[in-house]
């Protein structure tokens, strides 16, 4: 009797064993209509386009392979003796610079992993986080330099195997205490209190240089103010003293891997589940048996302990501690940007965020690399706007031919116009200048063209549904944007660097508000 049949069962896919076989995990528990719903959701989740396909095939690899590959890359990165040819071409010819940048990345990655515990898992908006980083740095300076001179002793110079665990424990205790003081607060109020704590630390570090103690006749200098304390001991473990950045790089990589594994395991345990439950709904978590207060204190303490590890080994590597900007709000903002950009609550995400935030500004220092990024990003945006490939290729060809035509016309009609000489001589520059008309006074015209290019870009986005306006305007915009880059932006590297950084962050966050590897959060449904 067809009328009696369950309407959902009409879908032939529902009973097709072949379709189910595509989803082995789900097919194991074949559950009629729900199975079908799952397949639909699975299809919806699948991404499209070349980037989507790339991401899908990356995610199809087993997790051990993925992490193994990343770790192998990080292990091999500094070993590239000399500089890869393409980097040399772009003006980076210093291997030490690359290693230093990567080491800085590792310090920030450790910090980001710690911040992720506090903010990402437990949901506590802790703006005093960099204070723990700083406190640990100063503690290391006291314990492992010639700064503390008591009873004729030239500094304490504790062995690292004692000082590092000691500093971590003390800082975790301070984190626990700060948590205890602010336990009743949440959200914005907690943020303000912890921000105050961070500010107090920085101000103390800057000003505690002439402290009068009752039992001393002369004032005591605790921090050496803005200059900070320098000549810190190198880390020495088991009789082996680290002295090159490369050695620190590998030590930090080891620390980061250990931290990553530990925090990952914590996240997938009763404690991690309780943290996330508290972030989702504190009252429900408490009523379901999780002691919210104690767990929040634990998150504070663990966050502080991880910041302390990064602070201690970071200070040892740098050889000094300086309050501003290293331990100031600027670093805090950077850290939050890393964590948010990478995806709050996602461990690989926050590490990726730290990588982008430490490496991208350095890459942009080289204006040639910035040029590659500018043109590459522009082409990518263009492709995404014009998909499929055919339209994109036609548009690009149109813009190039149009540009060459303009250049030819300019030579014919006004031979003196195209006589400006631009500095810079990378292959990309040479290539692009073949179709740009460069007047002598290119800087003045460049200013106007830059503003025009920005306005045109907005206009193009506005008229994207009207082909008769869209394509010609887009062609003009491409030409003018290239002109603006060559005549203005490429010539002001310092400003352009910040500009590109800002624009790419804005674009990234608009494209993926949940962060690069984060999961979209649902609050109320």
């Amino acid at each position, binding site marked *: 009797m067809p009328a009696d049949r369950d309407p959902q069962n009409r879908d032939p896919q529902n009973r097709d064993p072949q379709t189910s076989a595509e989803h082995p*995990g789900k097919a194991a528990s074949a*559950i009629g209509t*729900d199975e079908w719903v799952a397949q639909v959701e699975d299809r919806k989740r699948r991404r499209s386009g070349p980037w989507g396909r790339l991401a899908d095939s990356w995610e199809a690899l087993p997790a051990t392979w993925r992490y193994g590959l990343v770790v192998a890359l990080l292990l091999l990165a500094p070993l590239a003796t000399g500089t890869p040819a393409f980097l040399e071409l772009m003006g980076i010819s210093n291997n030490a610079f690359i290693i230093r940048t990567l080491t800085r990345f590792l310090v920030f990655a450790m910090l980001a992993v710690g911040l992720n515990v506090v903010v990402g898992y437990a949901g506590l908006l802790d703006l005093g986080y960099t204070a723990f980083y700083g406190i640990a740095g100063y503690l290391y300076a006291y314990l492992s330099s010639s700064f503390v001179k008591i009873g004729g002793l030239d500094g304490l110079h504790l062995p690292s195997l004692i000082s590092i665990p000691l500093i971590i424990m003390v800082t975790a205790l301070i984190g626990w205490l700060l948590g205890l003081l602010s336990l009743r607060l949440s959200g914005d109020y907690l943020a303000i209190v912890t921000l105050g704590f961070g500010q107090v630390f920085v101000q103390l570090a800057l000003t505690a240089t002439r402290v009068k103690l009752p039992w001393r006749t002369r004032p005591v200098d605790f921090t050496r103010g803005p200059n900070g304390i320098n000549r810190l001991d190198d880390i020495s473990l088991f009789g082996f003293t680290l002295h090159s950045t490369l050695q620190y790089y590998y030590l930090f990589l080891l620390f980061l891997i250990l931290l990553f594994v530990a925090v990952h*395991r914590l996240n997938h345990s009763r404690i991690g589940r309780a943290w*996330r439950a508290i972030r989702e709904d504190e*009252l429900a978590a*408490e*009523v*379901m048996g999780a002691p919210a207060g104690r767990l929040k204190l634990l998150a504070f303490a663990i966050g502080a302990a991880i910041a302390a590890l990064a602070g201690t080994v970071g200070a040892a590597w740098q050889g000094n501690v300086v309050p501003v900007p290293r331990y100031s709000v600027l670093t805090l903002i950077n850290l939050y940007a890393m964590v948010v950009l990478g995806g709050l609550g996602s461990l690989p995400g926050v590490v990726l965020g730290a990588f982008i935030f430490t490496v991208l500004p350095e890459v942009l220092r080289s204006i040639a690399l910035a040029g590659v990024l500018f043109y590459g990003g522009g082409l990518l945006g263009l492709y995404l706007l014009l998909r499929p490939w055919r339209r994109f290729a036609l548009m690009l060809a149109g813009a190039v031919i149009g540009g060459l035509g303009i250049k030819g016309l300019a030579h014919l009609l006004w031979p003196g116009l195209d006589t400006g000489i631009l500095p810079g001589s990378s292959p990309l520059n040479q290539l692009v200048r073949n179709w740009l008309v460069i007047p002598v006074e290119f800087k003045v015209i460049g200013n106007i063209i830059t503003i025009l290019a920005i306005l045109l870009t907005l206009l193009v986005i506005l008229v994207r549904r009207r082909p008769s306006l869209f394509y010609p305007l887009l062609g003009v915009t491409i030409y003018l944007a290239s002109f603006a880059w060559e005549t203005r932006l490429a010539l002001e590297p310092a400003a352009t660097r910040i500009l590109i950084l800002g624009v790419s962050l804005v674009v990234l966050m608009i494209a993926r508000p949940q962060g690069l590897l984060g999961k979209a959060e649902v609050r109320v449904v």
Partner: protein
Amino acid sequence: MALLEVQGVTLSFGGLTAIRDLSFAVDEHEIVSIIGPNGAGKSTTLNVLTGIYPPDSGDILFRGNPILGLKPHQITALGMARTFQTLRVYLNMSVLENVMSGAYCHTRAGLPAIIFRSPRWRAEEARIRALAEENLAFFGSRLQGYRHQQPAYSLSYANRRRLEIARAMTTGAKLLLLDEPAAGMNPNETAEMTELIGKLRDAGGFTIVLIEHDMSVVGGISDRVLVLDYGEKIAEGSFEEVTTDHRVIEAYLGREGSGGKQDEQ
């Protein structure tokens, strides 16, 4: 001895007395329903029982021990768990994690055990996972299979209610306090929920305190019914007894001759 004993509990918010001198007892393996018009103090009673609001006076004994002054998580650890009228599942956690999180109060693994994945941690984790799966299986095929790994926000309203019950079961509770478990469900689902509450008692061994507006649920399974109005207990007895009690009818329908007033409100 009664499992739960409430003795003369009074709670007021400012000048408003939400619960006035409320006393009742719940025996083991009983299903007791609390009914009453909106604002009668039913949910507030649950909030007092679970330690969210401290009462002004009175005493509450659970398994013979006073629980006043204990924090909510301590009360849960003693064996009393609840669901919420306004659903409070952890939307961004998976279904299985939602349920497993309920096991916090009877698991012990500390930081070292978790970080080094000690055999004890493995055994404990396997135990809670099995417990969570078992409790989800209580609801038939609805929360099974691929659903385990889905985020809770993808669940329907009715499934979220079931998920909340599964989470409360996983705390190892003896006493379940269900706050309107059938709210927002269609008649079929309501009948199913009624049957399920009976099953929770018979097969699961739970004692149940139920707040419900749907009289088909209340009448179907309650051993005893408590009626609250303006924070006071106005009747107690079997469903048939209380539904014929004139004070209860007054509370729900208004006094005879003043029926028009009800409409004005």
